[in-house]
């Protein structure tokens, strides 16, 4: 008897996560994510609580399946979608307190809403992590994107985005989607100059 191998979406979709220190084009297929939205400065109380809620849900769903002997998988990396500017006046940067974001963890397609609800109910019943109820299952279809690996502090991601923008323009493309970051390093201990982040910008023809 063989048990099916553990699914690792990051490995399975390697091409979508390919990122070098220079911008390149990738095509990202529609994918399923656990998602939680919020507002405020990164590292603020809401942000911290919601990162916790997202992980609590991801591990509760995974472990419940594992206990039931269902297909096992690796919990994905933390990702984030960010809106920094006022959508009505895109030139105006918002103060940190008004930054809006959606935190994501990519999840296999076979995870369905009922498992999500079951997990949220289990966590809430134990009186843990009230934000768990806000986690949703969403599909994100980004299509053609410019992508690169940013190495260094988060404060300097703007420099990478500027490179990506120039690259896109050179190809007759414009950034048109929501800024997307995929966190490969753990900022709790990794020195900021070594932090690795995949930066993804959906693009479209000018």
């Amino acid at each position: 008897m063989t048990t099916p191998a553990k699914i690792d979406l990051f490995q399975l979709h390697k091409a979508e996560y390919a990122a070098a220190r220079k911008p390149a084009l990738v095509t990202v297929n529609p994918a399923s994510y656990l998602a939680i939205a919020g507002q405020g400065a990164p590292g603020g109380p809401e942000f911290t609580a919601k990162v916790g809620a997202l992980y609590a849900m991801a591990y509760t769903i995974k472990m419940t399946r594992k206990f039931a002997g269902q297909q096992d998988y690796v919990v994905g990396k933390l990702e984030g979608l960010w809106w920094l500017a006022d959508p009505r006046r895109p030139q105006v940067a918002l103060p940190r307190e008004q930054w809006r974001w959606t935190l994501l963890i990519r999840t296999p397609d076979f995870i369905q809403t009922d498992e999500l609800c079951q997990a949220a109910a289990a966590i809430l019943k134990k009186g843990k992590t009230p934000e768990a109820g806000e986690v949703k299952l969403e599909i994100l279809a980004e299509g053609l994107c410019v992508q690169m690996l940013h190495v260094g502090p988060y404060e300097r991601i703007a420099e990478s985005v500027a490179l990506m923008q120039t690259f896109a323009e050179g190809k007759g493309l414009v950034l048109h989607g929501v800024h997307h970051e995929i966190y490969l390093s753990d900022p709790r201990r990794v020195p900021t100059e070594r932090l690795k982040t995949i930066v993804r910008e959906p693009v479209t023809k000018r």
Partner: protein
Amino acid sequence: LSGKGYRPDGSSASYLHPGGVGHGTAAAFDKPFGRDFVGLQNSKNNQAPSPVIWYGDYVLVGAGCEPGPGKAGFRQAARAGDGTMKTVTLKDYKERMLRVLVHIQQRLDDPLTLAKLARLACFSPYHFHRIFKGMLGESVQEHIRRLRLERAAIQLKLSEASVINVAFDAGYETHEAFTRSFKAMFGLAPSRFRSDQRPLRWSRAPSGVHYHRGKKLQHFKTIQPGGVKMNVTIKTMPATRVAFMRHVGPYAEVGVTWDKLLPLMGKEGLLGGDTMFIGLCHDDPEVTPPDKIRYDACVTVDESFVPQGDIGRQVIPGGEYAVTTHFGPYNKLGETYAKLFGQWLPRSGREMGSTPCFEVYLNDPQSTAPADLLTDIYVPLKTR
């Protein structure tokens, strides 16, 4: 610990607080936007319910250990008459370790148990081995074996004793085992070594301690701190309540126990956003035989947790801990322990407590490359 393979199936990745930068349009990037990154002070992590009982069977070194005045210049951190604290210095550590080294030289043929040697130096038997290795650069067993082989080399050159008798004297039961060890150390089989015309010599041990008959060992060298500077902080931890499953067996297999514990906890909704994943290490894998190593896979819980089946409950004692982060694969944890015990501790002015060390796993070994794994090592300190 030389734990290999993976540890927790899940991780306290919930402590991951990446900042993020975002924008609605590219135009938002026209302005540099300062963004300080997320503080990592997880004071929340450190809060735990009040203690209940400490589960475990640790030998406290104390009574009967303190030698009388004048004995090898032994001093221990103690409350001085005026109520101020006396710090344990590197010199104290060295003096205590020197007594062990002298004893080994003088009693090379005795069965030298770790417990006995630890007692001589007034170290907790639980931690002695690591301090020894960290200070001397070799384990107690390696040290004893090396000295016995050095003595054997001298016998081969200077006496008429048969090789097999020299082997027996060195504690080997067979000619083959002796030859293998001897060759590994001196580069030649014992019989070749004996007939070789070159003078007796061997490479210098980092500690400078070699087999020496007659003259009493006066000093030794400790391994100097080198390489990347070790970042150690002293944290006061509250007592931490955990649910745990005990693993008895090789460290390399602790993942099996995590694989049982986490689904059971997860399906009950007990893996919350602030759950910590802790490995409580009751034994040193370099000392305890693999099949006897006790390790508790622990998950933080609140007071409402009820033990069930194989899952027990215990409280990790609060108090001061020396904490350092190990970067990289779990099978290299032993190197960080050795550095912490042998290089940092003797220079810290502190002594270790006798409760177990524990490890906090900061990321998920399933989705993290071994080189990127982060583990905080907590070493208990004696109250002063």
